[in-house]
Structures are given as structure tokens and as C-alpha cells.
């Protein structure tokens, strides 16, 4: 059973948390490793909660779900969702003026000294870093794929990028990149050209294209797929000794062919948001390789 506080403030929320811990209804601080602040609109709330719960199971934490733009009569309501997750999940509903002062509620609720990660569910494509809650922590997670125009959002992100910010569009690529690195390790031959096939609106495809350009310094073709599958379809690296081709043929599988070797089947399941978020939460220091990529994309945009 969840506890709900109407027309409340941070003081009362903290008191309630303390009481719940004493009564054993909530995990104590020992064991918790971070505070996750989720900035979301009422529309994306359910999706945000799914991510929060899964993340809470992987990383014991206090999860503050800030739902802004509610239309309640009072400024702030809070709900303690203890039964839904191993973590301390608190839903905060902001209405009216306090919407603009959400940080004044969140700051007293952060776990002392431990890292704070902000996941901004809804992205402002013009100024993706323009999340007033980002200042609460040193880690900001956004998802350019949640924008109406993911490519524009991704580019804007690159222009305003600061270390500590990461994009779930990049997280989606980890497995693909690992396979490419391993394939090239095996072929050991200079890459002459590359090709990425994915829908034009796919931010991961665009990021991968830029990454290959940055790392390899060769032209990378971007082609549109024939099928309507929404994600990355195929990557081809043309080396001196032949082509490396990594091709998705189902939402869970891909094939990998290397020059002079039989084609192999690889498991490559599409990952869902909770999995992506969990990967991000293991990277509390940010991601230097992503910082470099953002700088590369920004400098290309300028020239």
C-alpha cells in the first residue's frame, strides 16, 4: 500500500521517509548508491516509471519522479511507491507555481554525498540541456529519440554538449560497436570506406555514421533501408581484404560476415529503455568517448 501526502513540502516528505525507515517500510540509506531524479511530463509518466523501477532493481537508489505540469488544486503532492520497487521511489506531482521551483523540493530530498543522476524524459530539441533540474547532479541522461525530430535534437545536443551528459541513442549502439570492434580485430586490415543503412530519422544511425567517420577518417555512406524496421539495419566496413558486413535480419538477430570466412549468426536483441538506463547508471563518470563524438559533430556543424 502506498502512502500519499497532499499539499505537502520537502520537510514533511523527509519526515515521512524517516518514519517509514524506522517502521521497516523503506530501505535505509546503507546500500543505496545514488539518487535518480526523473524529470517528466504527466504524459510520459508511465514510461518514466517503467524505467525507474527497472533501474531501481539494478541500482539500489532513491528515485524521485518529478511529474511537472499537473493540474491539482494544490502545489505539491507526493506518493511513496514502496511496493513497486526495491528502491525508494517517490512520485512528486507539481502543479502551478511550484512547477518552476521543483529544485527547491528536490534538493532537500537528495541522498547525502552520493551521486545524483538526472534523467530528463522529455527533450527540448532547441536547447536539450535546458533542463533546470540538470544542475542538481553531474550526470544528465537524455534521449534524442524521444524528440519529434531526433536528428535535430541530436545536433542541438552536440552544440550544447557538456561532459556528463549522455544520450540513450548512443547507448543503443553499444552492442553494435562491440561487434564491429571485434570484427575488425579479427580482420586486421585498414578500412577504406564504410556504409550505414538506417532510417533517416534514426539518431543512433546518425551517431554511428559520425563515430565511424571520426574513428576511421574515411567517407561513410548513409543509405535508406528498404524495409520499415525503425532502427539501424546494416553496417558495412570495406577493408583492403574485403567487406565486413553486420546486418540485422530480425529484431533479435543479425548476421556477421567477414572476408574469407563463413557468415555467422549473432544474437542482437533490441534493448528497451530500462536496459539502456541501467547501462547509463553504471557509468556515473560520464563517457569520454561520447564527449569526443559530440565535439566532432559540433565542429562539423560549424564548418
Amino acid at each position, binding site marked *: 500500500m502506498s502512502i500519499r501526502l497532499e499539499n505537502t513540502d520537502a520537510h514533511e516528505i523527509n519526515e515521512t521517509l524517516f518514519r517509514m525507515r524506522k517502521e521497516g517500510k523503506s530501505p535505509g540509506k546503507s546500500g543505496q548508491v545514488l539518487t535518480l531524479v526523473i524529470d517528466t511530463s504527466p504524459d510520459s509518466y508511465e514510461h518514466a516509471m517503467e524505467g525507474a523501477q527497472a533501474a531501481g532493481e539494478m541500482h*539500489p537508489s532513491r528515485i524521485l519522479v518529478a511529474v511537472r505540469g499537473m493540474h491539482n488544486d494544490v502545489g505539491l503532492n507526493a506518493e511513496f511507491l514502496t511496493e513497486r520497487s526495491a528502491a525508494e521511489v517517490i512520485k512528486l506531482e507539481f502543479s502551478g507555481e511550484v512547477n518552476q521551483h521543483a529544485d527547491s523540493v528536490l534538493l532537500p530530498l537528495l541522498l547525502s554525498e552520493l551521486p545524483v543522476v538526472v534523467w530528463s524524459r522529455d527533450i527540448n530539441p532547441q536547447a536539450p540541456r535546458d533542463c533546470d533540474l540538470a544542475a542538481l547532479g553531474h550526470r544528465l541522461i537524455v534521449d534524442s529519440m524521444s524528440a519529434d525530430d531526433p536528428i535535430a535534437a541530436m545536433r542541438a545536443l552536440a552544440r550544447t554538449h557538456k561532459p556528463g551528459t549522455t544520450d540513450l541513442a548512443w547507448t543503443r549502439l553499444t552492442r553494435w560497436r562491440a561487434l564491429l570492434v571485434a570484427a*575488425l580485430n579479427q580482420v*586486421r586490415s585498414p578500412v577504406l570506406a564504410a556504409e550505414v543503412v538506417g532510417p533517416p530519422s534514426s539518431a543512433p544511425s546518425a551517431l554511428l555514421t559520425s563515430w565511424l567517420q571520426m574513428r*576511421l577518417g574515411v567517407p561513410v555512406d548513409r543509405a535508406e533501408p528498404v524495409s520499415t524496421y525503425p532502427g539501424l539495419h546494416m553496417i558495412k566496413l570495406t577493408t583492403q581484404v574485403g567487406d565486413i558486413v553486420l546486418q540485422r535480419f530480425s529484431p533479435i538477430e543479425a548476421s556477421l560476415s567477414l572476408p574469407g570466412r563463413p557468415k555467422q*549468426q549473432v544474437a542482437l536483441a533490441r534493448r528497451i529503455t530500462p536496459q539502456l538506463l541501467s547501462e547509463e547508471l553504471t557509468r556515473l563518470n560520464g*563517457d569520454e568517448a561520447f564527449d569526443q563524438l559530440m565535439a566532432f559533430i559540433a565542429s562539423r556543424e560549424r564548418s
Partner: protein
Amino acid sequence: MDTTWTNPLLDPTDRRLPRLAGPSVLVLFGVTGDLARKKLIPAIYDLANHGALPPGFGLIGFARRDWTKNQFIEQLAISVRQNSRTPFRAEVWRQLVAGIDFVQGTFDDPQAFVRLKETLDRFDKNHGTDGNHAFYLSIPPKNFEQVIEQLNTHGLTNQDGGWKRAIIEKPFGHDLESSIELNRVVSAAFPSESVFRIDHYLGKETVQNLLAFRFANMMYEPVWNRNFVSHVQITMAEDIGIGGRAGYYDGVGAARDVIQNHLIQLMALTAMEEPNTFDPNDLRREKEKVLDAAKVPDRVHLHSANGQYAHGWQGGREVRGFLEEDGISPDSHTETYAALRVDIDSRRWAGVPFYLRTVKRAPRRITEIALNFKRTPHMPFSQPDIEALGVNSLVLRIQPNEGIEMNFGAKVPGTQMEIRQVSMDFSYASSFTESSPEAYERLILDVLLGDPPLFPRQHEVELSWRILDPVLAAWADAGQPEQYPSGTWGPRGARHMLARDGFAWRRP
């Protein structure tokens, strides 16, 4: 192959990328054994599930059983479904099955090894595994020589054209002499950097946790020495008896089974100085240095104890004594309890005894390292105030529920000045719930990556035997070990052994 080639996609700052093994084949000897079914096969599946195995990875089972390849795959599927850590996913299984094969044969049959070679050649051709072969000898040590000789004669250990690596499990011999002999056999076929010795009690994750705790923190180092620590107790207790392992256990005993490898390694990691880096060579150097300075006291019989569990009750069940177990002779001298004191001659530890003990049929299962601190030199309290105060202690719990426990005194609320022992607990599993890889997963991946293992090399194994051999010799002369009731923490002799030094065993 061009060794100067660097992969342009690889970037050391790209910490997100998982380490993927190169193309390779793992040959499993003893694939029908318990260990393979319960640990190795599931670990291989879990690795595949994380995407840590390369496409085209090969797994060849070698066993006497008259199985077809498909029967073999069925058996594997059962052990994966029963024992894997991660959920079963059809697409991962499909990828794995594409690289599975079975070779039927016995260790003395040259034809079987000819078939093994043919199978490996076929894998290299069809799966692009490039002659990279790892041999996991999950077999009794008495068969090592035969299998390694067969591998050698059939050209399976030739390091040209792909690496060849061997994995062997403890025990590494039964005394100093036999461990040297075992090493001679193994190193005749594999260079030392290609031999991976695994102690499955002590995973790499645990070792690294210990190193991180000691060397990434400031607050423990100042007290980690003789000025503050009075003595150290390292315990590994099991609530079970020998079960069906009589054949292996009789004549080996608790000290050889557990102390020589596991507890002495834990002691080395606890007592060693800070290595220059965590490079395996630097680490090994420090461990060897501290082992070199370690020895049991001269009058061994006063500072060691052994025992055999007797009939009794363990955790609410009536259990047989060791001498009544099937396959154990009633006059067996094999010990199921072993405890000994080790002194380390160094500036850091002079005068601080390390007590190592292992117990079968103990009240419960636990492995821990406990640093017990000295009492404060002056207590501004009266005696009744501190009656309930124990000593400060810092406990590194290895298993189950790996973690850190700190015990100290706190005032009981109220007008009386009364101080009582309290405990503070950190557990890895509750802070890092993302399940950590199993020891075997780390090991298999290290082997395939060619990562120098944190597991002991031959020299360390020999140093450990050198510490233990005098104790084994003293026990061999002393007759049958003392009986202790099942479900207790050990024989009376062990209590006397600590009482002589003015200490008592912790109740873990």
C-alpha cells in the same frame, strides 16, 4: 600476423564497450562431470547472453559417454536451463549451438585425439577460429599427464598459428614435491603464461573487491598493521560433510583441500603490501613476498589443530560422522577440520598471528577474514560500563553475501553510562544488485582474452605448500584427529590452540 596493427575503432577512453573475446574454441575434458554441468556450461551460456563471446565461438565436449552431437546438445540445454544465471533466450542459444560439437573417446585412446584434432581443424576452417584453442581439464589430476601427453603427441599444443591455453583446477598437487611434478608435466606442453590455475572458491571479482577495499580507501591503511591489529582470523566453514566425495577427499583432507590454496591466498591478499600497480605481475610479486615471510611456529603441534566431524545433529538433521561415511575407512586419519597459526615476519605484521581454519559440518556456511583490533590502552570508563563491549573488529565477508562488517562500541541510551557492542554492515549485493559475474564466467573470459589471470602461478603454489608441509608432517605423526560433534565450530584442541595465545575463535 602484423603485430603493429592497431584497431582504429578501439579507444581506451571508450569504457562502455564490453571486452569481447576473439574467435576461439574451448575444449572441455570431463564435460559430463558435475562441475561442467553445474558451473562451466551455464557460465558459457551466460557469457554468450552478455554478448561476451564472439560469433563463431566453438565449444567441443570430450567424454567417454557414447553420445551423438545432438544428444550432447540436449544435455547442455538441460544444464543451461537449470543452472544459468541469466534467462534462457532462444536466439543466444541458437548462436551458441551453431558452434557446438562432441568428441567421444577415452584419455588412453589415440584415435579419439586424432578425431579431436580433425574436429578442431574443421572448426578453424568453418568457424574462422584461427587455431585459438583452450583446453579445460575438468578431470582428476591423475589423468593430467595422460591427457597433456596426448595433446602434445597429436600436435594440439603447438603455439604456431593461434594460441593454445590450458585451464587446470585445484588441487595443484598434494604437497610441495607433487606440485613441482605436476608443474613439470603441464609446463612440458604449455608455457607458464598459457596455464590458468583456477581456485573456484576465490573468483577474480572477490580478489578485486579486496584490493579495492584495501587500496582505494584512505581510512583503513593507517590501522592495517601491528600497531592496531591484535590478530587475524580467516575462516572457511561449510555446513555440509564430504557428501559423495569420499574417493577424492580421503587422504586429502581439509588443509590440502582448502587451506593450501584458498585460505593462504586470502591471507596473502590481506597481509601483502600495496602493489605498484594492479598488473598481475606486480600483484604476484607482493603476494610472493608476503608468503615468503610467512611460516608456522616451530612447535607446530601447539599452534595447529585438526579434527573429524562425529555423528551428531547439524541444523536440525541427524548426520553421520566422518568415519561412518561411505567409502571412508573407520581408521582414516584424514581431517575435516584444520586450523593453524601463521606468523609473518615483516615490520607490518610482526607479533600478529594469522589463524587459518576450515570446518566441515559447521553450524553454517561462511568464509570471512576478521581483523581483530587491540583494546584501547586507557578506558575512561569503569569496568561495569564496558562489560558488554567486545573488541573492535573489521570483517571482510567473502561468502555468502559478500560484504564488510564493522563492530564497535556504542553507548546505550539512558542515564547510565553503558557501552555495548554494535555492528555496521555493508553488502555488495544490496548496493550493486546488478548481478555480478560468476567466478567461472570471469575465468573463461580471461582465458579467451588471454588476460593474465590473478590466479596463482607455480611459485606461489610452491610457497603455499612450503608453509603447510610442516603441519601436514606433524599431523601425519600424531595419529587420528580429534572428534568434534557435527554442527559445532570444531574440536576442543582448536580452542586450546587459541587460548594459549590469549585469544578465542570468533563465532562467525
